């Protein structure tokens, strides 16, 4: 009895300390600074195999964060977000292969093309709501994949190979195009995405406008928020980030195929990561991205099956939606308490009273 009590109070002490820390105005600066230092030092302790895994984890955290902007904060479930990842990759590929330009212009043009496409697609598509928006964006992404499979400029069904020489980067790099170099590029992009997401969506008036659109679009409109404009801005921003990640990914992996970079699995993973971590939170995509990515890599490493993570993810997503709609972050910060989960189980059991 007494041992239990000390345990509880010990936990409460820790939680109180965590709460006191997170309540501080400058908590995010400390957290972010610690993340920067940690990620900068990480490659020193990793061989190239684990550096590659860390690189992948960083990319997925960033991609999940970009999906979270439109899906989590604005409440528009974009089932075609992966299209921008693929478009970024292919634009970079085309710029480097067909125009023989270095990677840096390729990256910039990928961002510009992503923004232009997102604007053109966003204007009509963002008029749709809910499921209609989800289906439309899904159809758009699948159409883009089919187009890339048909067109000659993307290499069609043969895919596309990118230059691998160190000189193709644009500016000289000490050490050449090593795994560690790409790690730092991805880390910079990923940290930049998280920081931008925090500053724009959590720490500014714009963020409140975006969340107002999610919570009640009509009410937001009646308060004088130009919802159409806000939605477009978030959509374009999140799509540009996905395109930039696609660009770096293509340059790193050096071979891209429409079935891979434009495949629906890219979007699927982003959605799953954000949901699992926690929709519309800054830590959600980080936690979810790491969990899902490491689960997929570790299962192929230790369970000897490269597909077993799919059913596992499927079950995870169902459990989260059923019992903890605010994700892992919601469970950790107490938004979903044990009582809530219990209530959910009881309510679900009631629904089985079918006859």
């Amino acid at each position, binding site marked *: 009895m007494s041992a239990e009590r000390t345990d509880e109070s010990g936990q409460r002490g820790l939680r109180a300390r965590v709460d006191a820390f997170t309540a501080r105005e400058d908590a995010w600066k400390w957290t972010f600074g610690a993340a920067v230092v940690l990620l900068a030092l990480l490659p020193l302790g990793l061989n190239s195999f684990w550096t590659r895994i860390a690189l992948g984890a960083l990319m997925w955290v960033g991609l999940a964060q970009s999906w979270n902007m439109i899906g989590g904060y604005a409440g528009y479930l974009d089932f075609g977000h992966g299209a921008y990842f693929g478009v970024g990759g292919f634009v970079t590929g085309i710029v480097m292969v067909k125009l023989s330009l270095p990677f840096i212009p390729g990256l910039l043009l990928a961002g510009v093309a992503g923004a232009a496409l997102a604007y053109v697609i966003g204007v009509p598509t963002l008029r749709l709501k*809910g*499921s209609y928006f989800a289906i439309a964006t899904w*159809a758009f992404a699948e159409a883009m994949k089919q187009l890339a*499979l048909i067109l000659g400029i993307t290499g069609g069904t043969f895919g596309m190979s990118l230059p691998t020489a160190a000189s193709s980067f644009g500016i000289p790099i000490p050490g050449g195009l090593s795994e560690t170099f790409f790690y730092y590029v991805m880390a910079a992009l990923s940290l930049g995405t998280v920081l931008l997401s925090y500053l724009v969506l959590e720490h500014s008036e714009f963020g409140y406008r975006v969340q107002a659109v999610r919570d009640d679009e009509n009410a937001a409109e009646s308060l004088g928020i130009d919802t159409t404009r806000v939605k477009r801005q978030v959509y374009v921003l999140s799509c540009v980030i996905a395109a930039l990640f696609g660009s770096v990914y293509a340059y790193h992996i050096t071979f891209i195929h429409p079935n891979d970079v434009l495949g629906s699995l890219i979007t699927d993973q982003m959605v799953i990561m954000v949901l699992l971590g926690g929709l519309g939170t800054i830590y959600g995509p980080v936690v979810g991205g790491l969990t899902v990515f490491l689960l997929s890599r570790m299962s192929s490493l230790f369970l000897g099956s490269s597909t077993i993570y799919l059913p596992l993810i*499927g079950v995870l997503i169902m459990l989260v939606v059923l019992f903890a709609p605010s994700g892992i972050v919601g469970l950790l910060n107490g938004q979903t308490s044990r009582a809530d989960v219990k209530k959910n189980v009881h309510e*679900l059991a009631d629904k089985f009273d079918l006859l």
Partner: protein
Amino acid sequence: MSELFTQTLINGLLLGGIYVTVGVGFSLVFGVLEVVDFAVGEWVMLGAFAGAVLTAALGTDGLYLVPVVFVLFFVVGFFVQPFLHHVTTGDRPMPLLMGLVFTFGIATFARGAVLTIFGPNTRSITSGATSGAITLSGIGVFPTIRVITAAFGVLSLLVFMYYLYRTKGGMAIRAIAEDRTNARLMGINIRRYQSIAYGAYAGLTATAGIFIGLIYTASPGMGLQYTAFAFFMVVLAGLGYLPGVILSGIVLGVVQSFVAVYVSSQWVFFSLFALIYVVLLVSPAGLLGKGEAAT
């Protein structure tokens, strides 16, 4: 009219019959549960796989398994519905979209589980009916299996429609689709009838999967194509508008048949997805304008 043209047309009509079976259930589920089921193609895949695995294990003709698979998936669907009902109600952010995400989880689970357990290879369903053909002089030659498939499609559609429009249970289901709260106030056991609707949908779709597996083959990755087909049908027909699906399903079968014969097949899917996208933007209530307008 040339013989090729007539034969292509009739082949398309035969194919359309089975697509209608998939589309009608999908549309009904949207009406009743207000859920857009991203797992629709995976029910087709699961049905085809169940057919392939069971024929191999039992050594029976694939056609005998049709009632078995229907009952099996009716039961599965019957017990999946409470989960869907739970995630679309109660205290949670964006409840209707959570239903969509849940079916997304079902789809990922189904595809991944089949891929992991059975491997990526395609399988065929054995049946005596896959080899024969019916010759109509002056019109063309039609594989027996396609004729049987179309007959099943029409028959199941008639039974389904009879249940929906001529029985008390069907009336209850239509009432729920109209207004869930009011239906409940009228004393309808909404849980039971929602489960029947989802079970019937899962059963019909999986059974359609056996026939599709008999005509083509079964593979773990086949689901996406049929999800696309189902979306195409209901978007053209208007979400939740059942009679429109009969038309759009037949259109789909005929178009697919003609494109495969007369045009290069590589443009099929691009056109399909592009059409879904454009129709949703231009006319969200379907080409006939009778679906539920965008909410």
